């Protein structure tokens, strides 16, 4: 197992940054490794997705390296009250690529996957830099954070007050780089193709209503998402059994052949 714990000084945070990097077994068979940038959920850190799932095994078998930054509790956003965690994550992606030249820089071999809050980060990078990634997948994620904030403001969302530290209000976030519906609208108006996009959630998942609305909004904009509804709630019992199919979909696209 090729495992690296990287500590460095982040300019974006003006403080410590942290990454996990895992190369696939038999990485020496590849000139460059495909890369999955893996983003964790709220209250998590880089190693949580790896400890709670079999993602490394699925990636390793397919010759994919994993780069997982600790992104703190900032919803992959340059927070109104807090740190510039979106700038930090973009910097982390670049830092990993600089420190590990073995990682592919070919956009066709770079993929994004986020769990819960991490899915917002994955889509955000895919929409801001569509030329750098082949595909992005999100599991039970607040893609349309403006909508999430509206639900929070009206007491219809279980998320914590921490989200307000990042965004302050739905009005404040509307139209920014993190307003992903608006970002998709602009890309479509400019005729810019997006990376392939996948979104899944659980039938008993608190993210389900948001994600179902997100799917409709993206479809209306001309960017149909590939989707799947699994059985279960907002946890790794739902996500882990889907990850192998998600990794295959990231690599190959097409229909999603989910495993429930």
């Amino acid at each position: 197992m090729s495992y690296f714990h990287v500590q460095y000084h982040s300019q974006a945070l003006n403080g410590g940054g942290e990454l996990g990097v895992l190369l696939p077994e038999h990485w020496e068979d590849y000139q460059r490794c495909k890369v999955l940038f893996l983003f964790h959920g709220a209250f998590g850190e880089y190693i949580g997705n790896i400890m709670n799932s079999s993602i490394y095994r699925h990636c390793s078998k397919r010759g994919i390296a994993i780069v997982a930054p600790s992104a703190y509790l900032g919803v992959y956003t340059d927070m109104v009250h807090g740190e510039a965690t979106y700038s930090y994550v973009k910097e982390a992606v670049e830092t990993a690529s600089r420190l590990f030249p073995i990682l592919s820089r070919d956009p066709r071999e770079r993929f994004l996957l986020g769990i819960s809050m991490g899915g917002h980060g994955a889509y955000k990078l895919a929409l801001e830099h569509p030329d750098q990634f082949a595909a992005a997948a999100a599991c039970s994620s607040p893609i349309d954070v403006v909508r999430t904030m509206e639900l929070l403001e009206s007491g219809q969302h279980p998320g914590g007050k921490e989200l307000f530290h990042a965004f302050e209000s739905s009005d404040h976030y509307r139209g920014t780089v993190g307003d992903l519906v608006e970002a998709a609208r602009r890309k479509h108006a400019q005729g810019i193709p997006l990376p392939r996009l996948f979104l899944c959630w659980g039938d008993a998942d608190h993210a389900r209503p948001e994600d179902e609305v997100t799917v409709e909004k993206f479809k209306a904009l001309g960017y149909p998402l590939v989707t799947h509804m699994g059985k279960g709630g907002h946890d790794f019992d739902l996500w882990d059994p889907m990850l192998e199919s998600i990794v295959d979909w990231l690599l190959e696209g097409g229909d999603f052949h989910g495993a429930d």
Partner: protein
Amino acid sequence: MALIEGRDMFQIVRHSTRFSLILPDTCNGADAPLLWLLPIRGGLHSEWVRHTPIERWAEALGLAVIMPEGLKSDYTDMVYGMKWWQFISLELPEYLRRVFGLCPERSRQYVFGAEMGGLGALKLGLRQPERFRAVGAADVPLDQFERCDPLRAREMTDIYGPAPMDAEIRAQNDPVLLARALTTQEPPAFYLERNSETETRLARILAEHHCDVHQLDGTARDWDGRTEALHQFLHACPGLAPASQREEE
């Protein structure tokens, strides 16, 4: 500046092997000078990071530092153990090139160690002189090749085979014999302590073989001494200078 704690399954040692790696922000693989910094016997890969200000010094010098573990191997292809010499001299350099793009020119590559690490440093410098600009070694157990410490008899057998030591194995591992056999036209510079008769003898032989030999003051028997020795080495090393001075050049 990044500190990387890494582990990987290396094919030659056949062992999941750990290392610490410091990479400067300026690091662009081929451009950064590289220091091989070897731990003492039984030490973890991280010990130079934990016991000395190496990360701060490396940052000032724009220096990449690789710190591999070596267990209790004397960096030898052990008779009863793993092939640590091949690991450190062949597999790890190629690994660093492939994964991290580190492939410094000979004029920008250095090796330093204390105790067992000093032995490893001398062996790398003497058996692969074409790779290194300068070699630093402190508190090296040179006398173990003359007479075996009974307390270490078992360890020595694991590494070198049963006593008396096979002549060919000794010729590949005893720095005094390696120095006598040195034939390169362009040897690295050596930075050595002169606290024992054997150390003084080694320095004399190296000088006779047209090596540039310098003295490390003090004794590096504990972390205060090793820290001081490493500081002297980095300060004196040809081709290493703080960023502020490099800009003036």
